[in-house]
């Protein structure tokens, strides 16, 4: 890592601002994406301030208020705006705290899959040869299984729980990042600026991660958004199957699993947690669409 190797001109403050402005121009053209962004920001605020916003503690049980309907229904109480569940816990408070789990799951799982995928993908795309073949066959093997089934079996091996569910989902999502990174690295590798950096004496590590990688980020960012929503959905699905977060954690999928037996008696215990999952995932997917448009304007015009 010598200073000689600083071939790509350092990005000027001006051009960076210009890039951001251009990005925002395309992103804000997509009304759905902007809406998704606002909802997501709101969710982040809810997650951060959940203990302040929630009227009750998420696991507090009110014995005098079991399966109370939402406030607008007959028998509803203002103290429990969205009703209570079968052991008298306030559903709104649990949902607000659940936002923390979902966003945390999305963030951690995507980070693990992204970082792991990038490292493996850059190695495969940069070195090619047998190491590339081995890596890609391994990824093919992971992709041969339906992702949820593989995650389910992995959790069965590791033991049920949120941490293991997150590890399993990250492992299952990783091959997508590997493939994307590899393809991008392969198309960038023979460009002139890379050769120039190599001639200037840049080592392999520097070429891989400082010279090539920054130019491969666009598809990875879009994939990261998609993974974020997939991670939330899959973690909720595992929670629903009883293999993810364990009760009494106020994770949305786990809440649905606990609510299942009351579905024909108390619609609210089932409806709201699922709605929370749907809104979160939808907001992120809307943002993902906007990001794709903004980062790859060519695609949009077709």
């Amino acid at each position, binding site marked *: 890592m010598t200073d000689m190797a600083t071939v790509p001109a350092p990005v000027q403050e001006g051009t960076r601002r210009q890039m951001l402005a251009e990005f925002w121009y395309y992103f804000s053209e997509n009304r*759905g994406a902007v809406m998704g962004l606002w909802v997501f920001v709101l969710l982040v605020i809810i997650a951060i301030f959940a203990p302040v916003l929630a009227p009750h503690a998420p696991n507090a049980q009110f014995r005098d208020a079991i399966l109370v309907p939402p406030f607008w229904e007959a028998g509803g109480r203002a103290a429990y705006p969205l009703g209570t569940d079968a052991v008298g816990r306030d559903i709104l408070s649990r949902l607000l705290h659940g936002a923390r789990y979902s966003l945390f799951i999305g963030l951690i799982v995507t980070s693990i899959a992204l970082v792991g995928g990038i490292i493996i993908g850059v190695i495969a795309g940069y070195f090619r040869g047998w190491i590339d073949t081995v890596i890609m*066959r*391994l990824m*093919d*093997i992971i992709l*041969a*299984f*339906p*992702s*949820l*089934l*593989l995650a*389910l*079996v992995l959790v*069965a*091996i590791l*033991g049920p729980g949120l941490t293991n569910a997150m590890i399993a989902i990250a492992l299952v999502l990783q091959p997508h990042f590997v493939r994307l990174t590899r393809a991008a690295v392969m198309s960038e590798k023979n460009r002139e600026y890379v050769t120039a950096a190599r001639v200037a004496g840049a080592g392999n590590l520097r070429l891989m991660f400082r010279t090539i990688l920054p130019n491969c980020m666009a598809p990875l960012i879009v994939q990261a958004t998609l993974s974020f*929503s997939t991670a939330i*959905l899959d973690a*909720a*699905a595992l929670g*629903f*199957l*009883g*293999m993810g977060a364990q009760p009494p954690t106020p994770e949305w*999928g786990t809440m*649905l699993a606990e609510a*299942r037996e009351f*579905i*024909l008696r108390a*619609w609210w215990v*089932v*409806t709201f*947690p*699922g*709605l929370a*999952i*749907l809104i979160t*995932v*939808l907001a992120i*997917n*809307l943002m993902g*669409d906007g990001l794709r448009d903004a980062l790859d304007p060519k695609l949009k015009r*077709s």
Partner: protein
Amino acid sequence: MFRFILGRLAVLIPTFIGVSIIAFAFIRVLPGDPVMLMSGERVMAPERYEQLTKMLGYDRPLPVQYFDYLTGVLQGDFGNSIVTRRPVAQEFLTLFPATLELSICAIIFAMLIGLPAGVIAAIKRGSFFDQSIMGVSLVGYSMPIFWWGLLLIILFSGVLGWTPVSGRISLMYFFPPVTGFMLIDSLLSGQAGAFKSAVSHLILPTIVLGTIPLAVIARQTRSAMLEVLGEDYVRTARAKGLSPFRVIGVHALRNAMIPVITTIGLQIGVLMAGAILTETIFSWPGIGKWMVDSVFRRDYPVIQGGLLIIAGIIMLVNLAVDLLYGLINPRIRH
């Protein structure tokens, strides 16, 4: 074409071997003693333990064990279930038709709605209809289907009382399985009302399992159609004075379908993952529920065998899709 097939097979075989190694290694990385796990017994005498170890082949080197396992698998022997003691392959074959029937219905449902919706959205690009279709399909794509299933049960079974909550057919009807497909078997049985009962049990699971493929197909059809509509040959066809129906139906649709067919083929992975959730919600006696139940019962030979069979099926379907794609789009072969 022959080279193309060979190339695909050259990738497929090592992948399948890798998949089988994972399925084989699975039981050995589990916490606990594989002999105790496989036998399903909690306490046993040392002599019995020794005898079982020999019987199950755990006293031999790992590569030999793997080779034996693979030989068995290639002959259709996936071991026996710990719980039912029946061969895994046999259990799979009894349950698979239920999943297949549900999946076929789901994909037909998704195509029946998704294809026309995507085509119309592309033709009327930017219209209110287009925006609604795209909005709805994004909701469908983001849907937690396990919740969606519960909502449909609340509405159609709870409030309206139109459809049953679970199972494949009402317990009133009993007939021996002929094809394994309830719709066909109920017709063959000749019992009045049996077919209707089978249909009413199938409706909600079909909708739930078909929702995500439906959204994907609608979006993919729209974008493929948009791309084709901008091509020169479509403009030429229009300029020749062909009717809009003919331009779209014959010239545009045929070419737009090429990527869509691939998309539909690739939905099989989505369907298998969806079957796990859908079958659990509706107590549908298929492969998905079988796998979930086995995970809970810690029925390792079933998990192991099921994993391998499902991955094998998905790989074969993907291969078929690849070949079909090469057949209808000769450009890809080179």
